[in-house]
């Protein structure tokens, strides 16, 4: 029981990180990133490969953050020049290319077979203690990211963004946000997603390209919308509701045994789709948010 709860909380934590990444990109900067899962994949693979090669897990995690950030650089440059909806599709395509690369370059990534046996931290502790320790790490990462975003938001650049957002005249006069910091923010966000990927890989201990399909990105968007765009506590609440929806539907079947079975997957899709539509229609600001940027 405990171990299952821990597993859910850890996955929620990973999704919270992803949602924070998106909140930084979209909620804070208005960058439409539809390639969250690409950075997630880069992080997961980088860290896993470094750790499997025998280096410390910590080094892998650092590598994941760095590589995910670096991979975001060209996209960040592009983002400063492209219309918002173009960026959406470019990032979507980027994530697909990442998936195709990890699928194809099997000398490095073991391709479609996936990477089994990714080292797990605290594996000597036994399932419950290990889960607890891992949850602690995930929590710490989330808090660190939270602190980082708060600092960015209240730093000089954050005030600039805030000022521009509130002043239409200034916005039209300046045209867009300054380029340099915009690219930096994009890279920092990508690093956060990379971190999430690393944690995810080390927890599940097996990664395969199938885990990094575009729908994951949309789930993260859903979590952000439900939690509230631009709201940091919302990131957690959104992720929790999302995973709650996934996992909660498992128990429907227990309550009415044999009634739905495999059709549950279809129903889950219906629930999620409906939730997204209803949120957008009736509560676009999410549960925690106060405003919706358009």
């Amino acid at each position: 029981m405990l171990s299952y709860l821990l597993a859910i909380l850890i996955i929620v934590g990973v999704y919270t990180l992803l949602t924070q990444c998106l909140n930084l990109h979209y909620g804070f900067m208005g960058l439409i990133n539809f390639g969250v899962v690409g950075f997630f994949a880069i992080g997961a693979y980088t860290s896993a490969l470094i750790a499997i090669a025998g280096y410390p897990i910590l080094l892998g995690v650092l590598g994941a953050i760095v590589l995910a950030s670096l991979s975001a650089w060209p996209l960040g440059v592009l983002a400063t020049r492209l219309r918002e909806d173009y960026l959406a599709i470019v990032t979507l395509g980027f994530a697909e290319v990442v998936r195709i690369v990890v699928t194809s370059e099997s000398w490095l990534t073991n391709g479609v077979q996936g990477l089994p046996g990714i080292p797990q931290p605290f594996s000597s502790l036994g399932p419950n203690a290990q889960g607890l320790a891992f949850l602690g790490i995930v929590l710490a990462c989330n808090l660190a990211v939270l602190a980082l975003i708060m600092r960015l938001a209240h730093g000089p650049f954050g005030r600039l963004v805030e000022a521009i957002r509130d002043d239409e005249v200034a916005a039209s006069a300046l045209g867009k946000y300054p380029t340099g910091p915009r690219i930096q923010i994009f890279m920092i966000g990508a690093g956060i997603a990379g971190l999430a990927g690393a944690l995810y890989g080390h927890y599940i201990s097996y990664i395969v390209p199938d885990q990094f399909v575009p729908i994951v990105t949309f789930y993260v968007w859903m979590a952000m919308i439900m939690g509230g765009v631009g709201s940091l506590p919302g990131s957690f609440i959104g992720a929790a509701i999302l995973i709650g929806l996934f996992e909660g539907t498992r128990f429907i079947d227990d309550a009415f045994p044999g009634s739905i079975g495999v059709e549950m997957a279809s129903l889950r899709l219906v629930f999620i789709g409906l939730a997204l539509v209803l949120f957008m229609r009736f509560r676009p600001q999410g549960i925690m948010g106060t405003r919706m940027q358009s």
Partner: protein
Amino acid sequence: MLTMYFNLVVNGIVLGLVIGLAALALTLVYAVARFPNAATGDMITVGAYAGIGVQVLGSRNTLLQGSAAIAACTILSMAYYWFVFRYLRGRGMVALLLTSIGLALFTRGILSFFAGHEQFVFQIPLVEPYVIYGVIIQASDLWLAVVALLSVVATFAILFLTPIGRRMRAVADNRDLARASGIRAESVMIPLWGIVGAVSAIAGIILGIKTVVMPETGWLLLLPSFTAMILGGLGSPIGAVLAGIALGVAQEVASPFVGFTYKIAVSFLVLLVLLIVRPQGLFGSLEEVR
């Protein structure tokens, strides 16, 4: 050797026509509502399943199947607009896009709940191809090309030769001016979404006949169609179709050089280069002239 490339070009055109039809449906919505409608893919799937439904009921008449698909998708598409998108006008691109993703998942969930995850196949006779100087042309692909062309022509006829089409283009061009000129946007939007549904239905039937019908059928077509839409210039119907074909050909002709797993990435690469070099798309667009 040259024959091989000619064959690849033919393959690319066939593939591109399917992508182009989906891109046409996408771009029509984009022209008037200014967002990429992610529900298009699953609308295409609905079309395919509607055709299968007719087959299950006992008719193998493709015309009948197609009519059922068009009827189903037209109604569904208009319902999407009436019950959902109508209320979201002016909310911005992201809100509309996410809503359309929600509708896409919802539609697919409903479909797979009732039809299951197993494949369905249109029962059509398999016939030998025409071979012209080594270039292989399948009879079914000729039909596909004719139907695709007809639907494009029909769409154009509606847009350019009828009063309602004129009003649609006027609303797409400048919604405020259209309203202030007395054009009721609503009376334009509903038929437009109907047309979008019909085009999706035709794409669905064609895709279904060419491949197998499964709940994910249309969704998987979405990314290349998005690319084609941008490539063709957002909101440009002719551009979308031509860009679809261009993408298909580029992808297939590139495959001997990059391999079959990377060929999908080719369309993304084309897109990237184009966006940097020519952000208004290959064929210009409404954006350009506004």
